[in-house]
């Protein structure tokens, strides 16, 4: 016998723990993958090979004078100074949604140029810019 009895016991418990832990990890990871929402800037969407079909977030600046209202549906343009995407939104616009300022919308892409938003995220004050938006704008400004 290579292992003593107690070592064998410990090995058994250890391997059992390992199996349980990996099942739990897999379960959590699987669920996580299903429920994360990816953030894209308009330029990134343009560069994608396939149009993502699940829920995503899109962020950038709301283009000046782009907002139009049609019954209860708003259409506006989100830009990262390089590419633009039309956004359609059915609902009330929040306090801090202002043309020329940053905004993040959540919803699905109809195609690469058109986005249907279900929520406009605006839980911040007017000078705050979501870090993702700030990053993508900074990148595009320096490339120009």
């Amino acid at each position: 016998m290579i292992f003593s009895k107690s070592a064998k016991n410990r090995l058994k418990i250890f391997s059992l723990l390992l199996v349980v832990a990996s099942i739990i990890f897999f379960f959590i990871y699987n669920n996580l993958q299903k429920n994360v929402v990816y953030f894209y800037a308009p330029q990134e969407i343009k560069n994608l090979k396939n149009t993502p079909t699940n829920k995503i977030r899109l962020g950038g600046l709301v283009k000046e004078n782009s907002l139009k209202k049609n019954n209860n549906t708003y259409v506006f343009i989100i830009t990262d100074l390089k590419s633009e995407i039309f956004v359609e939104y059915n609902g009330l616009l929040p306090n801090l949604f202002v043309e020329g300022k940053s905004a993040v919308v959540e919803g699905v892409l109809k195609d690469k140029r058109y986005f249907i938003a279900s929520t406009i995220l605006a839980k911040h004050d007017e000078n705050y810019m979501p870090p993702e938006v700030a990053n993508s704008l900074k990148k595009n400004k320096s490339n120009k």
Partner: protein
Amino acid sequence: MAGYIGNLTLFLSLIFNGFLIFSLIKGIKNNNFKELKTISFFNDSIFFLLLISFLILIYCFIVSDFSNVAVYQNSHTAKPLIYKISGAWGNHEGSMVLFILILSLFSFVFFRTKVIEKLKFYTVFFQAILILIFLIFLILTSNPFDQIVPKPLQGLGLNPILQDPLLAIHPPFLYFGYVGFSLVFSFALAGLVTNNFDKLWSKVANFWIILPWSLLTIGIGLGSFWAYYELGWGGYWFWDPVENASLMPWLAATALVHSNIVTFKKDKLHSWTALLSIFTFIMSLLGTFLVRSGVLNSVHAFANDPYRGVYILSSILLITFFSLAIFIVKSPKKFLYEKYYFFQRDNFILINNCFLIFFLSVVLVGTVYPIILDAISGKSISVGPIYYHTILAPFLFIFLFFMSHGPLLSWNKEDKFLQIKNFKIFFPISIVISSVIIFWFFNYKDIILILGLFFSVYLIISVLFDWFLQKKLTIHFGRLISHLGFGVLIFAIFVNAYLSKEINAAMKVGDEVKIQEFIIKFKSINKIKKENYEEVFGNFLVINKEKQIELTPSIRRYDQPIQFTSETSIKTNFIVDYYFAINLSEFEKEKIMVRFYYKPLMFWIWFSILLIAIGGIYQTFRLKNEQ
């Protein structure tokens, strides 16, 4: 001037802390503590010096001494006094002073309790190391007494959403909870190093676990309550990383509270209790890191300084590494070869401990994964509430079941049949009650809702059953009230999640809208001017069947800094909250955006959190008197 004294006391406390560590090492090396008086003197003076610097900081805020950077950035002369004071800990620098002050307060109080001398000195030693790490952090990266020359005439003001009476007391509670766990951490390390990790250890530790646990419970409740009425989104928990940061230590500590009782009652699970003590404090540190480093994309992330983040992260890694090293080397080696019984109380506690750790890992992964992914690949993601709900709910039900039966089991003998008998009582009662509720109030039936209501009712029934069978209520009162609170909390959360209603509309004065069963009338508008803001009130009338409720939400325009906030108007009859918020839109200037929420059982969510905390506070003073 005051700033110099504050700086001086901070430096002095650092020096004294150095002396304290030095004399403790000397005492530990020679294994005698003759210089008890010196150690006690240093320990006390550190506390008083830190207290003085904290009071000086508050003083700087009260007199609006804008030569102080922290005051300049976070205060303004036109702010009411209470927010000037609370501004002292509402910012990064001040909150870190409070953090260290509480570290030393716990050390100060602990030194005065009755504990074996050796344990006491080691505990104070580890606590002093923690104080050292954070004092250096404070002085190097975030000195609260930094000066500006020339002195500005006016401050920049405190973020208006933080100008709220609840938020003035929320951080101290949270910090007492977070930092309070440092003592049991130090005490656990002391117990491990001196091989004193036993029944007596857990008897003393009980106080130092349950007290911060109760305060943290209140802190989380206050934060959640604030988010509910101040943010104006009708929700009370958003699975925001900052909220998660406070939930993680709470989950770890809840596991610790229970495993420590097993260690006390049965002289078992020593290693597990020790590990949890270490782990709880590390979770608190992680929470501090998440909030204070600015890595989060969140409403709360006010501090933005990479050096702070790096320093805190490396301290956490250092503390984790050394404490785990001590644990591995010195972990209590007690092998118990007794027969394993499934239906015994300690086994049920152990099972639910595993569930709590599972909940903790779910929250931990959901919080940290986006940050790590962003750092590695640059991809930005967010983890939505659905992740937490789908993964937590099914396990929560099993957890509630074990929680219902656990306390009815005996510590020492297996009594399976009694539990089957209990099951036969609880099961039909909770089936009847929960199905009555479901058929009466709910139009649609969802399996998660049914199970949620069933198991929470099951828990409540079992606690009440237990309550009325107790001969000596005083011993078990804390546990009963906390468990009852938890059952009510889960019940209220489920009912609230499924019965809440939301109405959005754009309205102008005189409008009347009818949506679902509600009629909303916009009656009038009026304006008032206050010390540091202007406020516009909308007067609304909500008609729900026979009931008429008047609500007056408002929009405030703060001057310093210029910012708009929506103030909600909430009326409750203890069963249902009627919740109203308004905001302005740039595009339809003549109309006001109206959000109305119908939120059932909100009062019971707050009340049950209070019950959980009260149970804890009661029990804090309880176990002391038991053998």
